[in-house]
């Protein structure tokens, strides 16, 4: 098989595995879990785009995940309550009139659009403000983390508006279906899987375009790109907004699949866990990022049930090891192995496809202000 064909063939194989084999083999409960992992894979894909390709380490992706999730959950809550009624948690908190913020979310079209547009707009605003001023690298990482902290504290504090610590939960009717039924779980799974596939192809296409090349160039040498007459701030803002939109979509899909959205899912720790997943899967590869999202969350669910404390050690050590030994993650290791085999078979020197250079240049600039 030529190298040109390998990508599409792999994609088709994975698509078959996800769309045909998994639904046939897994019981509805496991399928629901897999759907949840695939939601995280969508968010991880966005991080792969912003961080792996664009060099923007975003530690606040949970915020955008949350904006998408809450948009969807607000619609579902209002739909369950019926026209003219208040969602149950508002009644318990003593709220008497529907807050203005909630009003447009009676419309499902608005809610779905908001789940994509609001995170993208929020990211674009933050991006414009910070990237235009050439705030980057570590500064940006810290700001995005502070955003996640502030956002969750705000969510918890606004009990009557957002459901506080409990978040929004108990959805009985998701687009005409009871989310607890096996049929609904199956449908949700397919929707999530197809959206993930579509977004992956979109991100790939984006990276193949002129814009994608610019993005990588900005990662590896922002000032050089500026000297060539481009505006790195615009490039970064667009990439950041796209990655936020992906997180928003992931959040919106997560709500019907799992049945809850709450501040504990979007704070500093869950946000950084998404980044960990991308690092382990392989930050320089979009597929690796998505794979990491599935793998890490699968491992999290599987191990933390039985050994909660062991899992934390394992996660921490795994992470330290990946950063120190294999910065390319699983995808990087797989590529390395494939090339080693290819070399042995053909007896040639190193492959003509160069390893993607790590964003060391792009990150170096942070050390010297």
């Amino acid at each position: 098989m030529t190298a040109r064909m390998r990508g599409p063939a792999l994609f088709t194989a994975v698509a078959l595995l996800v769309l045909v084999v998994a639904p046939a083999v897994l019981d509805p409960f496991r399928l629901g879990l897999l759907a949840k992992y695939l939601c995280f894979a969508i968010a991880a894909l966005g991080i792969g785009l912003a961080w792996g390709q664009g060099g923007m380490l975003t530690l606040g992706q949970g915020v955008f995940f949350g904006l998408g999730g809450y948009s969807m959950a607000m619609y579902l809550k209002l739909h369950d309550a019926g026209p003219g009624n208040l969602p149950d948690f508002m009644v318990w908190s003593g709220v008497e009139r529907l807050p203005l913020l909630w009003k447009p979310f009676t419309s499902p079209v608005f809610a779905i659009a908001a789940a994509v547009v609001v995170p993208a707009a929020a990211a674009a605003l933050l991006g414009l403000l910070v990237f235009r001023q050439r705030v980057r690298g570590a500064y940006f990482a810290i700001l995005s983390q502070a955003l996640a902290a502030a956002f969750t504290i705000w969510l918890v504090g606004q009990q009557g508006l957002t459901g506080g610590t409990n978040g929004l939960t108990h959805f009985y009717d998701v687009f005409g279906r009871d989310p607890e039924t096996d049929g609904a779980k199956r449908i949700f799974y397919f929707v999530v899987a197809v959206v993930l596939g579509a977004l992956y192809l979109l991100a790939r296409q984006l990276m193949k375009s002129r814009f994608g090349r610019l993005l990588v160039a900005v990662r590896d040498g922002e000032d050089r790109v500026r000297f060539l007459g481009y505006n790195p701030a615009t490039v970064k803002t667009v990439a950041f907004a796209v990655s936020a939109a992906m997180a928003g979509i992931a959040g919106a899909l997560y709500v019907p699949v799992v049945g809850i959205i709450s501040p504990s899912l979007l704070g500093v720790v869950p946000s950084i866990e998404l980044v960990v997943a991308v690092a382990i899967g392989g930050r320089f590869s979009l597929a690796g990022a998505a794979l990491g999202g599935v793998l890490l969350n699968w491992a999290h669910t599987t191990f933390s049930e039985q050994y909660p404390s062991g899992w934390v050690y394992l996660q921490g050590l795994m992470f330290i090891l990946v950063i120190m030994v294999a910065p390319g993650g699983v995808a990087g290791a797989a590529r390395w192995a494939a090339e080693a085999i290819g070399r042995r078979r053909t007896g040639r020197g190193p492959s003509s496809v160069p390893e993607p250079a790590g964003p060391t240049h792009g990150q170096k600039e942070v050390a010297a202000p």
Partner: protein
Amino acid sequence: MEALLSQLPIGLSIAAVLMLVALGLTFTFGQMGVINMAHGEFMMAGAYTAYVLQDWTGREAVLAALPVAFAVAGAMGLVLERAAVRRFYGRPLDTLLLTWGVSLVLQQLARDIFGAPNVQVRAPGWLDGGVRMFGSQLPYTRLFIIVLAAVSALAIWAYQNRTRQGRRMRSVMQNRQLAACSGIDTGRVDQLTFFIGSGLAGVAGVALTLIGPIGPNLGTYYIVDAFLVVVAGGLGRLRGAVIAALALGLLDSYAEFWTDASLAKVIGFAAIVVFLQARPQGLFVLRSRALT
């Protein structure tokens, strides 16, 4: 006006805590460009040092713990620097993730050793009570923290400006290669910097035992704000960190006073982003001609 002034002591004590936490960070993050996410866990280690010492020293644990916690947290920092961080100079984002892994492990270690529930360190008897200031009560424990923060800041200033080692540290920060050419062992300076920065985290941790119970997650509550202080203050600028801590602490307490606690954090964050519009590199910028 009365209400305005009565909020001042509260704001000052928040600022003092922030300053203590951020002082160590200006060393490691500011001077070396290393984002140490485990800084919060070094604080936690300092706090638990006081808790352990309590068995021997009784209520004087806080005073006895200050030097011990400095050494314990400093040693942890030194080990981290030697074992891992040193391989990643110039790659701050990788260091950030690496040290986050370390912080995860340290938190779980604390949970396994000391248990998940919070524990209490009793404050010394001579810190009972408080002083009335502008119509609100300022406990002596808070006053102690304010004094401790001021003394720490002064000590660091003296170290950086009045000792040979401190000057070496500043020269490495300003231009690493030139410092190395002039015969300074930058590796040793890095170790010492990391030791002091982490040690200061331990001191901050001891101070935190005066505010409330301590637990394995202690560090996570303060670390984000402390990083913001360093960012707003400017990399490696002691003056900047002090002023930024004061500003953020006062802003936090007044925003909380006028709105509520949950909105105060959002206001604080927005203020920093707006502030960075005017001064993208923080309050005080180290001028450099080096092209990134």
